[in-house]
């Protein structure tokens, strides 16, 4: 088993398994952990490149002022607009970065798009906006989306990414407090920095009584239980994270493996759900294989062994973000991504060799290949995931192979779940061709 894993490790692009600092390794290793830096949306004096220099927070008034200045300036001098970079806003208000000459060409072929030129702060001071305060605020609300995409496009231009291909996936969320848009970059930066701590090494060598096949059987059953209880998707991903982390620090006899599974799901449910299933629900679903006292004892043992660290990034956290970056996304695409990710997590080598963000990105890549979404990997996806196609190819191939093998597998929970029309019956679709992944 270990030899087989070693071989796979050489072929694939694993996380550095031996050096992973784990959540469950005890206190002393955690003191040097990077604490989140001071957060803020202030840009330093050097500005954003391309003429925008923000030295104060982007409030709605300031946003409106910039837009008003820009539009006034645009009316005065359209020739200036043709020299610099501009933002063409399409119908839905999402700004697309276009070099000036492309705008010229666009003007010839279709109706003139609204063009907004962003002036620097200094220019704003010189030419106060003509509009009244109320009007400015109204225009700010109307144009908030376009302006936020302008800002993100500016910062991306400064990063040297291809301007015309990059989509700001949070632009439409700027005025939706449920999307927590102002914190989203900090949150995912934090996830990326801490994900290794929740990863596990190859632990099967230290488990005398269980093997990878048994783990797959357990995961298959847990997916069914999760579905029966109608729990949230993040509960499943946290459950599997708890199971793997616990098995990596404690040898478990075969007869207690299912107990570890239900106790892990109990903990994950309490952490994630509004209404978690109760202990006796888990007793019933495991056909009374264990009494409640055993479940409660195991719950405490797991929590103690993991030192109560449950706030860990799982593939789910990255999946929702990367699906959003896979524009345009739809239900079929989303379900295909989740199908492939769950197949990957059932497969022990995939679950332990790759970090959560890579599993999520590979699932999106494999799903796009499977559904023939061209291009298979975009600049937007590369920007938001931080991975290139090359880095994802090996993991994506495993997922595609698992998809191909799913109909004939004895472990059918994931396959059955995604054959359901509620989930677009994505399991019934043909898997991606190997050469698609190679060409991508």
């Amino acid at each position: 088993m270990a030899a087989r894993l070693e071989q796979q490790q050489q072929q694939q692009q694993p996380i550095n398994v031996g050096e992973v600092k784990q959540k469950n390794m005890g206190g002393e290793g955690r003191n040097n952990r990077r604490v989140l830096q001071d957060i803020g949306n202030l840009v330093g004096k050097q500005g954003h490149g391309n003429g925008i220099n923000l030295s104060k927070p982007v409030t709605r008034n300031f946003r409106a002022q910039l837009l008003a200045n820009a539009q006034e300036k645009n009316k005065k001098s359209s020739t200036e607009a043709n020299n610099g970079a501009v933002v063409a806003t399409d119908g839905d208000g999402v700004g697309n970065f276009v070099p000036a000459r492309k705008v010229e060409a666009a003007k010839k072929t279709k109706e003139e798009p609204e063009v907004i030129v962003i002036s620097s702060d200094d220019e704003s001071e010189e030419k106060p906006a003509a509009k009244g305060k109320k009007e400015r605020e109204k225009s700010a609300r109307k144009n908030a989306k376009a302006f936020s995409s302008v800002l993100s496009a500016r910062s991306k231009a400064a990063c040297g990414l291809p301007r015309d291909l990059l989509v700001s996936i949070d632009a439409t969320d700027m005025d939706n407090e449920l999307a927590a848009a102002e914190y989203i970059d900090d949150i995912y930066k934090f996830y990326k920095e801490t994900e290794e701590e929740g990863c596990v090494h190859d632990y099967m060598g230290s488990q005398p009584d269980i093997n990878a096949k048994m783990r797959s059987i357990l995961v298959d059953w847990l997916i069914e239980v999760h579905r029966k209880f109608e729990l949230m998707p993040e509960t499943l991903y946290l459950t599997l994270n708890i199971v793997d982390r616990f098995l990596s620090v404690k040898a478990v006899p075969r007869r207690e493996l299912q107990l570890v599974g239900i106790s892990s799901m109990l903990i994950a449910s309490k952490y994630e759900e509004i209404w978690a299933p109760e202990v006796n629900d888990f007793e019933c679903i495991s056909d009374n294989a264990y009494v409640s006292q055993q479940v409660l004892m195991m719950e405490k043992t797991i929590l103690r062994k993991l030192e109560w660290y449950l706030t860990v990034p799982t593939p789910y956290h990255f999946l929702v973000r990367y699906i959003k970056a896979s524009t345009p996304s739809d239900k079929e695409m989303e379900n295909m991504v989740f199908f492939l990710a769950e197949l990957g997590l059932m497969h022990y080598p995939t679950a332990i060799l790759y970090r959560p963000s890579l599993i999520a990105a590979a699932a999106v890549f494999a799903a796009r290949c499977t559904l023939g979404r061209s291009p298979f990997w975009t600049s937007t996806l590369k920007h938001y995931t931080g991975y290139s196609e090359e880095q994802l190819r090996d993991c994506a191939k495993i997922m595609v192979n698992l998809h191909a093998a799913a109909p004939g597998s004895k472990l059918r929970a994931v396959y059955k779940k995604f054959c359901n029309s509620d989930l677009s019956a994505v399991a019934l679709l043909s898997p991606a061709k190997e050469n698609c992944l190679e060409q991508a």
Partner: protein
Amino acid sequence: MLTLREKYYDFDQISSKVFKCRRDDQFFTMKIVSILNEENQANNGVPYWIIREISILKELDHINIVRLIDVMTDGPDLFLVFEYLDNEFQADFLKNPKMFMYPQMKKEFLYQILNTVAYLHARKILLRDLRPENILVNVRTQVLKIALFGAARTFEAPLEAYSSSVGCLSYRSPEVLFQFGCEKYSTPNDVWAVGCIFGEMLLHRPLFSGPSDVELLDEIFTLLGTPTEETWPGVTSICGTCALMGPPQQPKDLAKEFPMLNPDGLDLLSKMLCLCPNYRISAEDAVKHPYFKGV
């Protein structure tokens, strides 16, 4: 593995469930939490709020958050070991008479609260139960600490539905009060609570204190005006019926209500108490507000 008594000693009772204890030359505060229910049975294991509180606290490292050092189990009890805060740290910080001696001190403490909330939001944590009782201050050193994370939880973006029956009523935001069981709320909920605390610091009494949801909403609208589709897009669909909002009221002049505040302070207060959560200032932006120049 060391037992509780082997690891910690010299126990001094502070309150029924809180002890001061020692380990080597360091003092700690120990909070005892029973996992038994009212019938003295541990029939559902460790309560969900303890799991959340501990796992969240384990992740945090911030000067203004009471630090969790250790978790020990002993029978049906859990022992949470926190950093020790000496007698100079007073709980329920607004009841401290020294709090109101220096205007600059209020600004300093407000800044620390907002800074902590911004830190938590950037780590996907909603506080949900921020109120003066959960805030301890040391007036001499001007350090503030937020304690008790029982109602805190992590959030995903976009946010899922979370329980709406959280938080002390007086500090509950209009979107939570309005939705009566519709559980979608987010980071602005915590900012509203900070706004209420700011108002309370200035007035020396709770800003809103209605005994029920409806009466509390009425108090809020008396001060800030009744929301309209213009000031809060979608408000009529949120509350379902305009009857909840009572007769339309005009917002009061905050400068008259808070004469002690300078224009920057009034601007910040109005932005934190903005009725529409979409337009409410974020903690991250509030920390950078001109009101805090020189803090």
